[in-house]
């Protein structure tokens, strides 16, 4: 069952030099109980997409089109003002945000207010949404702490008394506090050491098994996606260039960017081979390249790529790729 469906979403930022085309015609579906990995580099639009779903976009973001349908309701219809900006204080959205759709922020290290106790901040979030006494909310937090693996006696500590991994766990506890249906995790483990990262990823998987929530995991790290998500969407310069089931995309990628990404990752398994790198750097989204946005860096680019934007085609069931030469590339050759 589709829980969240983003359809043809386009978001631009207004800046001094014009419009940053941060997200263009992006469509993704998240079913219940599944994890979608959203992969891309900085500036690919993955975080903008997440903030659009949670309706926390900054003031200079304008929705230029598309729908965000959550359980049959278009969230944009609720909150979009006439000029395309979003009303982040909209009552209906506030009911959905955190209670239905919550978020684990990238910089958990700074996501807590340093002058309040961590536990109290979570209790406050619970009490803001639920009609519940302080004592009961506190019991709720105790339960959450046990779940994410932080000792209960840490509830009354301040953020600076937590280690990085603990803050990230507390952040997860806060995201789960209201039993949401969908959690967006924006680089939840990027700032952490590998052992802590591994534990948190395991935590997230266990959590999913137990509660059946859906997740969108945003990351630049393809190995993290391989580890936890069953579906993947690869973004480049504001567009989805490839999406499908994780196994299918990893084994039979059909987009040169995905190919480049896979080949540029060092790993600790298998034989050591020279890493490929993608020449150049991601484009300026105020003036994105004409045609395919990847063409200036693409080793296979031909004339058509500079002229025409490739449509997202279904190359095999459920596996979509936006490349003029997807059929030739299909299968990772």
């Amino acid at each position, binding site marked *: 069952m589709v829980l969240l469906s983003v359809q043809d979403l386009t978001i631009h930022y207004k800046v001094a030099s014009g419009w940053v085309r941060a997200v263009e015609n992006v469509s993704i579906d998240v079913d219940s109980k599944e994890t979608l990995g959203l992969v891309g580099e900085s500036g690919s639009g993955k975080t903008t997409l997440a903030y659009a779903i949670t309706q926390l976009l900054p003031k200079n973001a304008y929705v230029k089109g598309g729908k965000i349908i959550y359980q049959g309701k278009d969230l944009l219809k609720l909150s979009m003002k006439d000029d395309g900006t979003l009303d982040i204080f909209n009552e209906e959205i506030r009911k959905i945000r955190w209670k239905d759709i919550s978020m684990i922020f990238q910089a958990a290290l700074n996501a807590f207010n340093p002058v309040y106790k961590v536990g109290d901040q979570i209790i406050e979030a619970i009490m803001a949404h639920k009609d519940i006494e302080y004592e009961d909310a506190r019991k709720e937090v105790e339960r959450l702490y046990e779940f994410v693996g932080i000792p209960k006696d840490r509830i009354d500590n301040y953020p600076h008394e937590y280690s990085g991994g603990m803050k990230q766990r507390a952040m997860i506890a806060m995201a789960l506090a209201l039993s949401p249906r969908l959690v967006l995790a924006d680089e939840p483990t990027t700032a952490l050491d590998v*052992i802590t990262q591994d534990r948190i990823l395991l935590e997230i998987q266990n959590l999913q*098994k137990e509660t059946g929530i859906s997740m969108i995991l945003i990351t*630049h790290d393809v190995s993290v*996606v*391989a580890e936890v998500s069953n579906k993947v969407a690869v973004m480049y310069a504001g567009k989805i260039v490839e999406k499908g089931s994780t196994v299918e995309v990893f084994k039979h990628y059909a987009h040169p960017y995905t190919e480049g990404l896979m080949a540029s990752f060092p*790993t*600790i398994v298998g034989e050591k081979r020279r890493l490929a790198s993608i020449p150049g750097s991601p484009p300026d989204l105020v003036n994105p390249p004409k045609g395919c946005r990847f063409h200036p860096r693409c080793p296979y680019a031909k004339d058509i790529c500079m002229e025409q934007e490739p449509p997202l085609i279904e190359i095999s069931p459920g596996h979509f790729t936006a490349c003029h030469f997807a059929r030739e590339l299909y299968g990772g050759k």
Partner: protein
Amino acid sequence: MAEVILKVENMKKYYELSRGLLSFKKPDVVKAVDGISFELHEGEIIGLVGETGCGKTTTGRVVVRLEMPTGGNVMFKGKDITKLEGDELREFRKSVQMIFQDPYESLNPRFTIFKTLTEPLIVNGIGETYEERVDLAIKALEEAGLKPGEEYIGRYPHELSGGQRQRVAIARALIINPKFIVADEPVSMLDVSIRSGVLNLMLDLKEKYNLPIIFITHDIAVARYMSDKILVMYLGKVVEEGPTESIIFDPLHPYTRALLSAVPVPDPERKHERIPIKGDIPSPINLPPGCRFASRCVYFQKGVCDVKDPELREIKKGHFVACHFVEKILSGELKPTGEVKAQA
């Protein structure tokens, strides 16, 4: 055997935490690096690997003499760098360069690339004339993959991407022909598609100039790609040391094994087997005696591990491990104890 460029012997770096003016208690001590030894040879890349707070960055800073060690020796071509002064120190500074993590911080935003690159030339008295320095700067840029060099020389850092900035930092390090380089997490701030280009550049430069590099990273996959030899550090000590492939495919220390088993792999069909480890890294302040890994080790043996600090012992050729019970763990004689949480 290739020439030894740098020899570190039992090097220590302690930091005392100040406790305020009127405190009469003994100050707390953080043993950031507590007796590590290694040799860096001509044309070799050593990977220093470990988690936050393991002392890898401190080690890098001491061997370039940005910090003075608390104890031990750091010998550069037979001379103790801690005793250098005056001209000799200047000569040493010319022999070593560092590449830092954040190319947004390590380049002066008000300097053009030209100024950034020629400053070290002027300081070290290389290049007689302006024209000569321009040539050297262009050559260094092209060496670092920024071609044509003329195009970059007049720019400011803000006009470059992260990857290009890191290449400028590499060019700046190379321009005075150092004898070795310390690279501290040089790619961890870069985007994935850019990262491998910078890594390949460093490998090529090593090949071309036989340039030794101490490569500091938290990312074991990157360390594997770059290094000939890996030193795994934990709380100021080397717990395991050996040839790269031997460490990656046959890790022996319980910490290294847990660390490697926690590394995600870009293969969705792989079955992830985890080697257990307890708790988090303890505070490095006033560590208890014995093995530093004892509090997290599932093979902990009371009366030994909490009493005696294990020495590095050669278990396989060139592969050293600091663990009292490594043989018994490997033979299966010693079983893990304590809670082992369920897998996903």
